[in-house]
C-alpha cells in the first residue's frame, strides 16, 4: 500500500477522461480547501468561490500532474496561488478595498460576516450537521470514538492508531468504519431532510 494511492487512483481516472472521479476528489477536499483559503479571505462565500476556481484550475492542469507529490500538496499550492491572486485583484478594486479595510480589525466576527452571504436555511443546516455529528460521536462506544478522533483530528495512520490502542491494524480499520457508519446513519437524515427543506424554500 502506498500513501496517496486512493487519490492517485482517482487522479488517473480523471486523466483518462473520467470526470466523475474528479467529483470524488472535490468532495474529499472541499472543506479543507475552503478552510485553507479562509486564511486569505474571511468571507466564506468568497473563499468558496476561490476554492471552486482552484479546483477548476487543478482539473485543467491535471494532464501535467505527474504524481511527484501528493495530490493534495499539489492542489494546496494551486489554491494558495489562486487565493493570493484574488486578494491582489480585490485590493486593486477601490470599493472592495474599502469594505475589506472596514472589516479587518482584530475583533472581526466571522459568524457575523457569514450571515451576510449565507441564507438562514444554510446556516441552520450547517449548525444542524455540526450538532448531529458531535452528538453521534458522543454516543459512540469509547473504542470507536477514540479510533475516529485519532484518525480525523490527529491525522494518525491506521498503524499508528493500532500502536496507540494496542490492537491489530485490521481492528482499527473496522472500528473507524463502524464509527463512520454510526455517524452516517444520523447524518444522512439531516442531509435528506435539509435538502427537502431547501427544495420547499426554492
Amino acid at each position, binding site marked *: 500500500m502506498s500513501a496517496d494511492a*486512493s487519490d492517485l*487512483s482517482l487522479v488517473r481516472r480523471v486523466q483518462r477522461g473520467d470526470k*466523475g472521479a474528479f467529483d470524488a476528489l472535490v468532495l*474529499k*477536499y472541499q472543506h479543507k480547501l475552503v*478552510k485553507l483559503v479562509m486564511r486569505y479571505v474571511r468571507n466564506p462565500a468568497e473563499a468558496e468561490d476561490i476554492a471552486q476556481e482552484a479546483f477548476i484550475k487543478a482539473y485543467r492542469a491535471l494532464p501535467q500532474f505527474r504524481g511527484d507529490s501528493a495530490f493534495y500538496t499539489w492542489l494546496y499550492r494551486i489554491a494558495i496561488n489562486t487565493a493570493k491572486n484574488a486578494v491582489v485583484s480585490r485590493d486593486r478594486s477601490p470599493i472592495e478595498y474599502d469594505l475589506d479595510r472596514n472589516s479587518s480589525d482584530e475583533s472581526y466576527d*466571522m*459568524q457575523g460576516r457569514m450571515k451576510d452571504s449565507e441564507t438562514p436555511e444554510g446556516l441552520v443546516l450547517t449548525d444542524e450537521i455540526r450538532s448531529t455529528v458531535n452528538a453521534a460521536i458522543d454516543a459512540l462506544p469509547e473504542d470507536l470514538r477514540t479510533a475516529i478522533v485519532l484518525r480525523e483530528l490527529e491525522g494518525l495512520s491506521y498503524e499508528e492508531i493500532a500502536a496507540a490502542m494496542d490492537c491489530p491494524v485490521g481492528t482499527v480499520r473496522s472500528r473507524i*468504519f463502524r464509527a463512520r457508519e454510526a455517524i452516517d446513519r444520523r447524518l444522512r437524515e439531516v*442531509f435528506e431532510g435539509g435538502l427537502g427543506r431547501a427544495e420547499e424554500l426554492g
Partner: protein
Amino acid sequence: MNEELDSQLSAMFDDELPTEECELLARRLSRDEQLKARWGRYAVMGAVIRAERGVRLNASLAGRVSAVLLAEPALLATGAGALRRAGLRWWQPLAATALAASVAALSILWLRAQVPFAGTPAAGLAAATTTLPRPAVLPARSAATSRAADSYVVPRPSAPPPVAVPSTELANYVVAHSMFSTPVARRNLLSAFMTSEPAAAGAEEALDNVKSAAH
C-alpha cells in the same frame, strides 16, 4: 449497501486501502452516486471533528465545480502517460545526447581524414568498393533471368546510382539526427561535410560509417 464495500470506502478515504483495491473502487466511486454521497459525508464528518469553523458543511462546491466542468472536454489520456513517463530514468536523454555527439565527432574526424583525397574520386570510389562490398545481390536477380515470368522482384537498375545521392542521404541523416547533437557539433559536421563534397564518391562510405557508429 454492501458492508464490505463501505468498509473499503472508509479505508480508501483514509488512504489505507491497497493500491489494487483502490483502482477498482475508484472506478465504482466515479460512477455510483450513492457511494459518492457517502464519501462526501465522510468528508463532512472529518470537517466537524476538526472543528473547521466558518466552512459551510452543506456547501455544494462539488456540484458547482461539476457544473462548470460539464462544459469542458474530458481530459485526454496524456496524463496517464505523463505519470508513467515520470518513471523514466534521468540518464536516458543524456545517453542519447552523448551517443549523438560521439557519432557527430566520429564523422567529423573521418571526413577530415578524407579531405586530402578530395581530388581523386576514383581512389575514394575504389576504397568504397573494397571496404564495403555490395551485398551478394540478389537471388532474385538470377531468378529474374531464369524465371522472369514468375519473379515479383523489381530488378535493380544496372547503372550505378548518381554520385550526388549518397551525399544527399548523408545530409538527410545528419539533419535527422541533429536534434541529438549540439549546435557546434552540427556546424562542424556540416562544414566538414561541405569541404569534402568533391570526394562525394567516398560519402557513401561515410554514411555507412556514421550509421555503423550510431548503431
